[in-house]
């Protein structure tokens, strides 16, 4: 108790602390390592297919939906909770948004978007209230929400996909900006992902909302004694996660031009995996948006790279599982050192 533990490799002023550096940027280094490896392995006729602009954009676009969900899930996990409802919410919100953007209704594009956001934030708030006020464990509260949302999606559409969406709505997921010639462009989903990541990063690292999020996961009892409205904060966090899920749903629905009640299966687990690989601790109190973005990209790059290398998708699943487990083992070992 009375001994002060200092980091083994103490950094002197201006000195370089390797251990602290690896601790902080380890996951980024791993990501860069994987990219370099794939860049070399996919060289064909002197050109790296992996590094082709079109491929990189493709990877980013594919990762954007899970990535946006994972941003919100990161907040939830930092509070010490979990959100299992994301995948089903993507489907439920998707069919509602698709219905409202059908060509024949001719509603302005803002209507489905706002409706989707409200629905997402509302569903998230309900999970939050169940956890904060009814004291139901988040695992159960969001498991309930997951099942209900899935049912509602099927109920609204009687199990059929909703098609024939307006042109304007389809632009969200399919359009792009900065088109310079045929070979340079940035798809909207990527822009939205980046934008949401920046907003989330700011919220988490530089606002009261973010500090309270960490406080809840760090020590809920202490947070209460410090005068934090613990219940309200929890509800807000789940609402924010629901809101981001609705953004992801809008992007996905627009990209595939269809509201699919059966879509989004396992999205919540991919999102949780992204956060965890990015260093978010399921114990709560630890995690960053930067880490989660890298976590998302690691999964996306692995899938893409293994595709390019012709490895079967069955193996891809196995690789993903291994990465998750290894990430958590590293995380656990890091914590053991501290205690």
């Amino acid at each position, binding site marked *: 108790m009375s001994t002060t533990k*200092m980091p083994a490799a103490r950094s002197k002023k201006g000195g370089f602390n390797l251990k602290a550096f690896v601790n902080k940027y380890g996951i980024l280094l791993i990501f860069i390592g994987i990219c370099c490896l794939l860049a070399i392995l996919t060289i064909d006729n002197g050109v790296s297919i992996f590094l082709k602009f079109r491929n990189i954009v493709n990877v980013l676009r594919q990762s954007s939906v899970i990535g946006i969900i994972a941003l919100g899930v990161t907040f939830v996990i930092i509070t010490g909770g979990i959100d299992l409802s994301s995948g089903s919410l993507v489907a439920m919100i998707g069919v509602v948004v698709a219905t409202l953007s059908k060509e024949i209704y001719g509603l302005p594009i803002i209507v489905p978007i706002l409706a989707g956001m409200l629905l997402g934030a509302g569903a998230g708030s309900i999970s939050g209230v169940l956890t904060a006020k009814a004291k139901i464990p988040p695992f159960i509260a969001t498991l309930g929400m997951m099942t209900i949302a899935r049912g509602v999606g099927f109920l609204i559409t009687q199990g059929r996909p909703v098609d024939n969406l307006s042109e304007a709505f389809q632009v969200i997921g399919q359009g792009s900006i900065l088109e310079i010639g045929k070979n340079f462009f940035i798809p909207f989903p990527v822009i939205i992902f980046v934008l949401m990541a920046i907003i989330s990063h700011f919220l988490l690292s530089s606002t*009261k909302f973010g500090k309270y999020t960490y406080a809840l996961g*760090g020590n809920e009892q202490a947070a209460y004694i410090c005068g934090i409205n613990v219940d309200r904060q929890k509800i807000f966090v789940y609402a924010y996660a629901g809101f981001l899920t609705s953004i992801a749903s809008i992007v996905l629905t627009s990209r595939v031009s269809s509201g699919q009640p059966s879509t989004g299966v396992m999205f919540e687990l991919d999102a949780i995996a992204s956060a965890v690989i990015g260093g978010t601790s399921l114990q709560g109190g630890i995690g960053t948006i930067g880490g989660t973005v890298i976590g998302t990209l690691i999964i996306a790059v692995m899938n893409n790279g293994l595709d390019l290398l012709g490895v079967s998708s069955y193996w891809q699943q196995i690789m993903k599982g291994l990465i998750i487990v290894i990430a958590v083992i590293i995380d656990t070992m890091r914590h053991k050192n501290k205690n």
Partner: protein
Amino acid sequence: MAEEYLLDMNNISKQFPGVLALDGVKLKVRQGTVHALMGENGAGKSTLMKVLLGIYIPETGTIRFDGVEHKHMDIRSSLTHGISMIHQELTPILHMTVAENIFLGREPLRNKFGWVDKKKLIKQTQALFDELEIDFDPSKMMVELSIANMQMVEIATAISYNSKLVIMDEPTSAITEKEVSHLFRMINNLRDKGVAVIYITHKMDEVFQIADEVTVLRDGQFVGTKFAKEIDKLGLIAMMVGRELTNFFPKEDAEITDVKLEVKNLTLSGKFKNVSFAVHKGEILGIAGLMGSGRTEVIESIFGIYPPESGDIQIDGKKVSLKQPMDAIKAGMGLLTEDRKLSGLFLPLSVQDNMIYSNIGKYVSKFGLNNKLIHEDCEKQRIALAVKTPSLFQLVVNLSGGNQQKVLIARWLLTEPDILILDEPTRGIDVGAKSEIHKLMTKLAQAGKAIIMVSSEMPEILGMSDRIIVMHEGEKAGELSRADATQEKILQLASGEALAI
């Protein structure tokens, strides 16, 4: 010749970094007797018991148990030697039956595939219960039992191992009076069977009701062993407190002015009742009492963590309603909680983040938080309190206990409170940090703050308080001025005795 003593611990010393927890202590327990072990918090009772159970290896001394001499005990074999302990905090497996709990790991089996013979298990337990006159169903789930009945199960477990020595650590701290008398019948029953009982307690009455002999420890040293018949309460108190009070805790004079906080007839059923006191600006009010006397509950209740059911709280003569900690903070209060890990620190976060949480509203600006101001304020506190940390961004978990405590004090100082409540402000921290915190308390009092300090440490209470109130079983047992207060008087009040005038 038969052994005179079942247990003979001699010259036991145990050193921890910075403290000599036991210094040549002896404990001799006769077969078929109840031996009370007394002493204040930190006297060394638990350490001695941990040595007896083999959890700690002592530096010197010998332990002679049941005619066999040991250098030290082995934790794995203490049960087979015939020693079992009933802890203050019981840890049964709640969702298994009583019988399963008792015979855990040694269930009667029907065959060699490990099928448990449930009928035989119940029958064995019932036989044990009959022998001990315990009258509830062995097939009940543990979770359905009261704390008192869980204790009975633990005692039955001890007997089922044929224990020759049963250690009970404050067994009456969480049970009702009626249950206490049942427990005492049970203990008498054990004594009649020839079992020796070491009975750790803070309560004087119990010693005279149940014990044959009593050993008193103080500050890790052996004070004496007496027959209960040969001593009275005052004699016992004298043994427990006969310590030289060095002026370790010098509260310097501060100008004591108006009443800042006054509480009247605060009641919360099951915790405390009719508690009234006032604390003035510039004053340090000490609250003493045994663990479980309601000290912590009263101040946590005032702070709004669980508001009182009835009674008034007044600040500056005006009645206030504090329904949650947020209200108390707004009213100018700060609370350093008893257990810094459980309800104080955010262990995964940095020193700086730990400091700002009670006062975060101050730093909200249009665009996020004002990080520059946060850093300046925290840096000021770090310097003022001499918090030893390589940087404010260091994780708080890496700091020593004393420095963690300073971080928490800094958290409350940042809110610039008028009333500061400190629950065990120096528990488990080193001497240096301790005296720094005491100096700081004086400084705060001199700055006109009203301070309430709950403490289990007698020297701290006597040295730091301008006035002392003593709690006993949820009620205010008495109030002493600094000049009047002595260790004897505090202990008398804390153990429910009227003061001899």
